[in-house]
């Protein structure tokens, strides 16, 4: 009775000798949504993605990717999974186009289909003008984009992206975000691991936090009803503070700067705060979320751990 698509992992473990890289992970990523995989360095994100991509066998637990078990139905699972590794090794003597046609052939596309798909993907990741350059002349960010295209060659239902934004310039990051949202809109399941939490904030619908190989929290990001911190500044900081104290709103200063940080229950509370501040004659110059939802959740978890 389990739904067919998406990623489900339950009680997944994997150790390398004495190192428990993945100790106990539960994860659900739904089709049509972007799920962020967040955790500190060495928390087992990459190992988890290798397990999901069907490259490693779990020591325990069950995994289902697009309805197939990567262990017992490896072929079916691989045909529906696109994996973009964190370290993108290239066949550096091949051109970008050849990399994609080769991967197309490896996914058993015929030559014409692979060539058409390669051209389409090069266009998509803005590498068309570098298509016939050897891959080793590409910059890190360009290789990263080529890696993204490579993961999409066989139009997979499930995408596993390991640190896709690393090495990308701001323009490419925006493109990546748009692309990932498009893929999710097409009904694909996207799992993204990253350190750049603000990046994930704008990309992800859900978030799974892992730490020391365990799932420590699962949050929804897109719904604006999470308590979070907001940064508030006014033309006259002293007037702002006076008003906050009078209205009984708890706040704290941010360092020596003029801004104050307030914790608000949801977006509606932020709107209400702004309205009453302006009504009370405080010249508010900005009210914005202080850091992303994910960053705050992440830091909160970090504090819990200590």
């Amino acid at each position, binding site marked *: 009775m389990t739904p067919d698509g998406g990623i489900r992992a339950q009680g997944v473990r994997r150790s390398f000798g004495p190192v428990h890289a993945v100790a106990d992970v539960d994860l659900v990523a739904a089709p049509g949504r972007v799920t962020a995989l967040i955790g500190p360095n060495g928390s087992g994100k990459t190992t988890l993605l290798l397990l999901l991509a*069907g*490259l*490693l066998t779990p020591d325990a637990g069950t995994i289902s990717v697009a309805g197939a078990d990567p262990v017992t139905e*490896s072929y079916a699972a691989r045909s529906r999974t696109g994996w973009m590794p964190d370290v993108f090794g290239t*066949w550096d003597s091949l051109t970008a186009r050849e990399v994609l046609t080769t991967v197309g052939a490896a996914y058993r596309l015929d030559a014409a289909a692979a060539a058409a798909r390669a051209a389409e993907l090069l266009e998509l990741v803005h590498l068309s003008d570098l298509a016939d350059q050897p891959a080793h002349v590409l910059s890190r960010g360009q290789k990263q984009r080529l890696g993204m295209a490579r993961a999409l060659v066989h139009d997979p239902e499930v995408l596993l992206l390991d640190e896709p934004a690393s090495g990308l310039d701001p323009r490419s990051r925006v493109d990546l975000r748009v692309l990932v949202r498009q893929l999710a809109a097409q009904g694909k399941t996207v799992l993204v691991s990253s350190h750049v939490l603000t990046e994930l904030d704008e990309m992800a619908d859900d978030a799974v936090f892992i730490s020391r190989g365990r799932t420590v929290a699962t949050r929804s990001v897109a719904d604006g009803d999470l308590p979070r911190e907001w940064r508030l500044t006014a033309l006259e900081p002293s007037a702002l503070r006076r008003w906050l104290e009078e209205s009984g709103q708890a706040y704290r200063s941010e360092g020596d700067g003029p801004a104050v940080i307030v914790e608000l229950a949801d977006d509606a509370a932020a709107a209400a705060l702004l309205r009453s501040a302006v009504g009370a004659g405080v010249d508010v110059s900005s009210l914005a979320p202080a850091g992303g939802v994910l960053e705050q959740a992440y830091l909160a978890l970090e504090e819990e751990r200590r």
Partner: protein
Amino acid sequence: MSVDMQATAPRPTAPGRGTWSLTWHGLRTVTVLELRQRVRSTRWKTALVVWFLVVGLITLLTTGAFSILADDPYNDEPFGGIVYSIVVGFVLFLGLLVAPTLSSGAINGDRNAGTLATLQVTLLTPAEIVLGKLAASWIAALAFLVASIPFLAWALAGGGVSGLALLTTVLMLAVVLGVVCAIGLGFSALVGKTSGSAVLTYLTVGGITAVLPIVFGLLAPVTTTTEEVRVWDVEAGYSWEETEAPDCEWHTRELGVWHSERTWWLLAPNPFVVVADAQPLTDDPDALLDDGNMLAMLQYGVRYARTGPAAEYDWCSDMVGTDSQSPVEEVVVTDQLVWPWGLGFDLLLGAAGVVVAVNRLKVPTARLPRGTRVA
């Protein structure tokens, strides 16, 4: 019932292609990828050019040396045999040095560069990846062989070697190089570092080329037994001071007899033996020394070892002069082939390399070579 199952199952859950499933398409994809990678690296082309020049130089020098002898009016023997065998031996020797480098980094090198997992997650089967890599390294090795063929043909022009011998030699060289590539591939799947797999491949090739023949030699005392042998010897009580030639008669003597027919198989896997033994057997063993064809000599020697000791010895005929008739039959070397055994053993080693590599490339994998990342 089964129709119902299909109707409810949203997509087939068949395991798809198995580990050993092989398609032409998949094989070609990997081979073309590997060759593109290799051919575009200039090192390989340089190596091929250097190879061509070195083999050419060796051919030129040997030809030069022996054509001076051939100009000697008292020596009208064809010198093709010796030049041919030197060039073949040299090509095989260089081939055994080059072939391991072509394949022993094919898998762990890709693993280190992060490109192996890229192939493993696709729909290529492990057998397609391994055999594609084997085909690519073999084709590269064959390119070296093809670069040597002009010189082999040139040596052939010196006379004394049949065209059939050239054919069998080139064929055997090709197979032997393929086997070395397969062994290298096996080690490259087994060991994390490319230098480690190269060393292990060289040790294996060195083992069958040098160590086994040495073991064959060291086992000589063990395989030598004391037996009573009929010997055609000078008459009993003959004094060597006499001016008259001795008469010959049969004696029975206790002698150490080397039963090399029990250990000849240690020589068989040697690539030089395989190449030498596969050529047509020389009709006239006496012509071997004059011809100087070392391949033919090696073949004769190995066949001799396989034949084993003679039942009777002739210690007398040479003493009394060649005109006397000896009752002892001359040893005729066996016409039983040695190379199929040696090649069979070598092919098994190569097959083991392929099986090991395919098993190591299965995904998902339970174990990793020490100190490596999957990606």
